[in-house]
Structure formats: C-alpha cells, structure tokens
C-alpha cells in the first residue's frame, strides 16, 4: 500500500457522497481501477455504508403523538408562545429598557420571596429621613428586600457578589430602575402599598387587603418566586376547559411581570416544590377553610371535586389580583434609582447602621436608618450624588467589613480612658505648677488656674473626678472584653492585634475617602449638581457574635491545608 492508497482511501466518503468532482473524481476512480487492494477496500466500504443505509425504517409508536398531545393539552407543558413573548418584548425594547425590566422582574421576585418570610405590611420605624417624598418610595424596596434574597437574586439573574467579607456579610449587587405609573396605580388601588412621607417620617401604609379572605400575600410570593427556568418558560393562566389560551398580543411590561413567575399557573409534577414551599411559607389566614381553599387554588387541579369548584374558582380569582398587584407594587416601589444593594450581617446592626450613616453623611450624602422587618435588623437608605456613589459604596463596605461591636465598645472605652487620662495629666500639670504660680504675686490668672486645679484634686486621697471617669472607662473596657469573650470560642490575643489594625485601616479609609470627597467637591464647585443615586444597605442581626472574623479569616488563610491550589 502506497501513500497514494492512503489518500485515496481517505477520499472514499467524498467519493461515495458525490463530493468529488472532475479531475479529483477521475483520479480516485483510476487509482481504484488500477489498485486491487484499494478496489477491495472500496467495495467493502461501499457495502458497509450501503448496509447501514439499507436498514429498514421504523415507525414511531402509534401512541407517540397522542402522548405528546395529551401532555400539551393537559397543561403540563408551557404554552409555546409564552417564553418567546418575553424575548419579543425585550427584542423590541432599547437595551437599557430591557435591562431595566429584567432587573425589575428580578427585584419583584426578591421582594415576593421576602414577603413570604416576613409579616406583610409591618410599618417601618423612621429614625432618620432624607426629607424627600420621592425617596420614600425607596423605603418600600428596602422594606421588602430580604437577606435570603441572595439565592433568589441569583436565580433571577442578578449578580451576587461577596464584597464585604467571607464570614461577615454577603452583598447583592444589581442595577435597575423601574418607573411604571400603571403599576404604581395598580399597587395603590389593589394593595394599598403606597408609601407616604409625612412630616419627615417615612411611614408605610398597611396593605388594604391584609386580613381579608385568602392567605397572606406571602403565600403567593413563595409560589411566584421562580428560577430562570420559570422565567424563560412563563406560564399562562390555566386554560379554560383545558383549551389553549394564546395571548392576544405582546403583553405590557406589567402583564409580563405578572405572568413571568408563573404564579397563576398550577404547578404539578416537577414544579411541585414551589407549591410545597408556598404552602410551607403560607402565613395563617383568617380561617382554616380559607387557607385550605387558597392552598387548593395554588395547586389547581384539572377536575376539582364537586362542590369545591366554585370555592376554588373564588379563591383563584381572589388570589390572582393580589399576586399581580403585589408584583406591580414591588415594581412601583422599586422605581427610582437603586444603584446598589449591599447586604450584610452584624451582631450589632444598629451600631453598624449608625456608622454607615455617619460615613455617608460625612461625604455629603443623606442616610435614612430604618428598622428591618425582623427584630434587630436594620436598613440604611443612602442617597448620594452620583459622582460620589463609588466612594460611598467603598466607605459603606469599609464600615461593613471592619465593624466589630465588641471592639467598638472597647474602643470607646479606650478613647474615654485616653480622654480622662489626658484630663488627669492636665490637672497634675496644673497641680505641679500651681505652687510656683502662687508665689508669683500678681499672677492672678495663673493663680486662678492653680486654684481650679486644687479644686479638682484638693485631696489626693479622695478620688478626683478624672479618676472616677477613668474607673468608669476601665469598667467599660472590661465589659467590652467580657462581651467579646462571651462571643468568642477561645480568647485569642492575636485577635486584638488584628482587630486593632483593622480599626486603624478603617479610620484611614474613611479619612482617605473624605479627603477625596473634599477634593472632588472643590473641583466640582460651581458645576451643576449631579443626579442622586440610592444605595440600600441591609443589615441582618447576626445570631452569634463573631468578633474575630477578620482574624479568623487571616488565620484561615495562613493554614497551609486550606490554601487553594
């Protein structure tokens, strides 16, 4: 066999499939005619392929079509047009609008999910406000957004980053804006979720439908929270009489938002988990009968039992507007410009929120510190000029990553001790100089100072005021240490060193950020004020105090066995 034979045999497929033309084909055919081996190979090759091609065709089982149609008609599968509706909508939209809608939908899912875990309509406690009625709508978003939304956000396609620290916090970052007057109107009319700013305080109206027939909105929220799969295969309402309902045309964004999570859709088979979650998350309704009816409605059945049909229909009718209105309300609440959502955990959410607030206000922004829905949770709404946004985020994250309540208390104690020590030293100095001053007649001012010094420490056997302060400071430090020790599994002297360093870095960060802000402000003097953006910081109460998380992280990284290859 020659090299030519190899090349010829490599072209057998082309020859068989008629892909060789003209001279190439002639050359191959001539070689086959002249070479007995290749002729034999060619015959064998042609025979083998011919045998494959000669295999009889099989018919599909007669039941195949029926099975598919049954599956489709039974509503177990998604209507064909549902998913592409979303695509068509977004294709027709400018990119920013489409992106906005996607994020709004994601936020809606997040908010829905949060509603399933928290009591609906719990009023907010306004500690500070930013004196802007427009900003009040942001509080609704904060009210609804949940820490557990991280998973949901991922499911909804929102980037989730761990920007604050491995053990201390996680962050959900998303960008999006939604202004939908129709949705807002719908929310107002249906749910009363309108948020009003009165007298500088942010208040949230109770949902108008709360306590009415049917389960709490959270019941449906859990069902509405669906992953990207569900989003991409949006489901229509149950078909009447098991028929098909094609959307008459591309739905409005609001309708798309209400349809997308597939909340009006009975879930069965593989989707049963959502129903189970919905049931599990359902808040107690007024009566058990209503709850049962609502749950039944969630698991809509093709053939309800006699006598139940009307009840189920009523429950469904009652549910659907609430679900739709809730999403619409969420979209409306998110209107404005939430530029960033940062989620964190802390043993002392109030302290951390206050620090974040101070840091932001020091940069020229305003911050509203609000109570979270869970006891101890806090939320900070930051409103800051767009040009300062990055620095505000940096400052916020710096606070989130460095704040430690135990160290904070200890630090205050230390500062107090320093202050009182300074007072004591000053008094001592005056005390020492006073006798000399007394000798200088005419030194009335110095004499007065000396007298004052003696008034402070007239009797060294008695504890002067400065000393009392010192003792209180020492007590504070001790209490702080106790608190820290209580939270730590094993006291570690290394912790104090690391945390002190963290504290210094934190102060340096803030100082640097403030300097940059001032520099920018000087440069921008006279320029037109930029648009404000909003940052929401959600701080969850941490169950267990972990005062040494940074130090733990540092030690963890130092361990050779935990190093990532």
């Amino acid at each position, binding site marked *: 066999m020659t090299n030519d034979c190899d090349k010829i045999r490599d072209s057998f*497929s082309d020859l068989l499939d008629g892909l060789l033309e003209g001279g190439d084909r002639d050359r191959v055919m001539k070689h086959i005619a002249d070479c007995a081996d290749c002729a034999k190979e060619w015959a064998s090759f042609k*025979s083998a*392929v011919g045998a494959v*091609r000669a295999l009889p065709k099989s018919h*599909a089982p007669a039941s195949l*079509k029926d099975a598919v*149609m049954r599956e489709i008609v039974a509503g177990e*599968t998604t209507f*064909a047009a549902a998913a592409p509706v979303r695509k068509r909508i977004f294709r027709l939209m400018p990119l920013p609008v489409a992106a906005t809608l996607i994020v709004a939908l994601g936020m809606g899912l997040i908010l829905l999910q949060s509603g399933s875990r928290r009591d609906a309509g719990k009023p907010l406690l306004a500690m500070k406000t930013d004196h802007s009625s427009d900003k009040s709508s942001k509080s609704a978003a904060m009210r609804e957004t949940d820490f557990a939304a991280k998973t949901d956000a991922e499911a909804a396609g929102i980037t989730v980053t761990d920007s604050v620290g491995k053990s201390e916090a996680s962050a959900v970052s998303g960008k999006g804006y939604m202004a939908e007057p129709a949705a807002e109107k719908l929310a107002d009319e249906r749910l009363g979720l309108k948020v009003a700013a009165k007298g500088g305080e942010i208040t949230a109206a109770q949902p108008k439908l709360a306590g009415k027939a049917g389960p709490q909105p959270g019941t449906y929220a859990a069902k509405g929270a669906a992953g990207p799969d569900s989003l991409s295969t949006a489901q229509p309402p149950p078909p009447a009489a098991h028929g098909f309902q094609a959307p008459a045309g591309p739905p409005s964004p609001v309708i798309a938002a209400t349809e997308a999570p597939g909340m009006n859709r009975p879930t069965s088979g593989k989707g049963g988990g959502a129903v189970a979650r919905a049931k599990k998350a359902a808040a107690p309704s007024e009566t058990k009968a209503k709850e049962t009816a609502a749950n039944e409605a969630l698991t809509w059945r093709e053939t309800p039992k006699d006598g139940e049909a009307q009840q189920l229909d009523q429950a469904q009718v009652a549910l659907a507007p609430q679900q739709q209105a809730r999403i619409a309300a969420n979209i409306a609440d998110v209107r404005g410009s939430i530029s960033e959502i940062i989620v964190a955990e802390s043993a002392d959410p109030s302290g951390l929120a206050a620090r974040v607030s101070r840091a932001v206000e020091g940069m020229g922004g305003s911050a509203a510190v609000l109570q979270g829905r869970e006891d101890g949770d806090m939320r900070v709404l930051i409103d800051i000029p767009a040009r300062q946004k990055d620095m505000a985020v940096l400052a916020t994250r710096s606070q989130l990553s460095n704040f430690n309540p135990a160290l904070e208390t200890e630090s205050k104690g230390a500062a107090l001790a320093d202050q009182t020590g300074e007072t004591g030293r000053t008094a001592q100095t005056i005390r020492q100089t006073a006798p000399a001053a007394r000798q200088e007649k005419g030194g009335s001012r110095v004499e007065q100072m000396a007298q004052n010094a003696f008034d402070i420490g007239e009797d060294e056997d008695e504890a002067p005021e400065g000393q009392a302060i010192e003792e209180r400071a020492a007590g504070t430090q001790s209490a702080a240490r106790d608190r820290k020790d209580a939270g730590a599994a094993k006291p570690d002297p290394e912790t104090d060193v690391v945390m002190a360093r963290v504290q210094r870095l934190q102060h340096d960060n803030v100082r640097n950020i403030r300097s940059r802000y001032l520099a920018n402000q000087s440069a921008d003097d006279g320029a037109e004020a930029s648009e404000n953006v909003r940052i929401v910081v959600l701080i969850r109460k941490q169950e267990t105090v972990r005062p040494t998380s940074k130090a733990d992280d540092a030690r963890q990284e130092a361990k050779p066995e935990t190093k990532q290859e």
Partner: protein
Amino acid sequence: MTSPEPTDGQLLMNCRRGDPRSFGLLIERYQDRIYNTALGMLGSPEDAADVAQEVFIKAWRSLAGFRGDSSFLTWVTRITYNTVISHRRKGGIQTQSLWIEDDDSREEKASDNPGVDPADESLSREAQQRVRAAIAALPDDARRLVVLRDIEGMEYEEIADVTGLPLGTVKSRLHRARMQLKETLEPYAAENA
C-alpha cells in the same frame, strides 16, 4: 378537489396562534424521522420513544423561539441530538439493546439511497442485526453522525448545523466512523461473498 397539504411554515404559524392541532400535524409528519433518529442513536426502542416524546414537547415549549433559519425538521433533529446527549449524560440509558422490530412491523424498506447498490437494500434479519450491532459498537459521537448521514440522509451542512461541529470535522469523523463500520462488517461481507 382537496386542499393542498399545509406547509411546515403554515402549520408553525397556526401553532403560534395557539392551535395545537397544527402541531399535531407536524408531529404526524415528522414523528417517524425523529423516532428513527433517536432509535439509531440510542439503540433502544423504549428509550427512543421516550426521547421522541420529549423532543416534541420541548419543541412545543420553544416553538415561538424557532426563527426559521433552518427547516423545522433540522430544528427538531437538533433538539433530538441534544436530548439524546442529555439522556446519555444523565445515565438514563444504561444499555444499548439491538433493536429488532416485530414481525407486524413498523419497518419499511429503505429506498432511494444514492450511491448504494439497490441489491444491498434487501437485508436479511441477521444482516440487519449485524449492521445494527456494528452501529451500536461505534463511539457515541461517531454513531450519531452515521445515523444523521446514512440513516436519516441529512446533508453535511445540515449535520454541521444540528451538531454544532465544523463541516470539516463532520466529514472527517464520519469517514472514520464509516471505516470502523467497514472493519466490523468486513468478515460478514466476506462470508456472504
């Protein structure tokens, strides 16, 4: 006077309007092709039926996403190809049985195969068994290409479209697969000769 058969495009348009009967017609039109493709790739009639059912359901779900860049058949064949791969990955199909049809048979004779001697088209059941065994012995990716080209008769460009492979890769892999088939079937061919 009978009305002409609706085209795939007309049926698809009706489907998009929410008419499931039109989709039923599309199923009737292509179910044998899809079933055969799945059967050739999987080797098990039961699995092939399951996959064919899943393919049409998937097609219905994403029908409005079908842009018409390729033919409907190519599109559902692509779904079939991907579904078969997905089944294999999930381990849903553990074995490859040699498919042998019943006597009352859902088989029909292949015909109109270009480049193949008509005398070869009549295969005994034993020969069919051997050929199918040879196909089943191919590596998965090679077998899929043989099925698409030599059983379903798709063009190389269509195969490239279905598989997502470059045209040259399709050609070279298919040729290797055919050579392997030749090696496997050569002894039987010699016996028959």
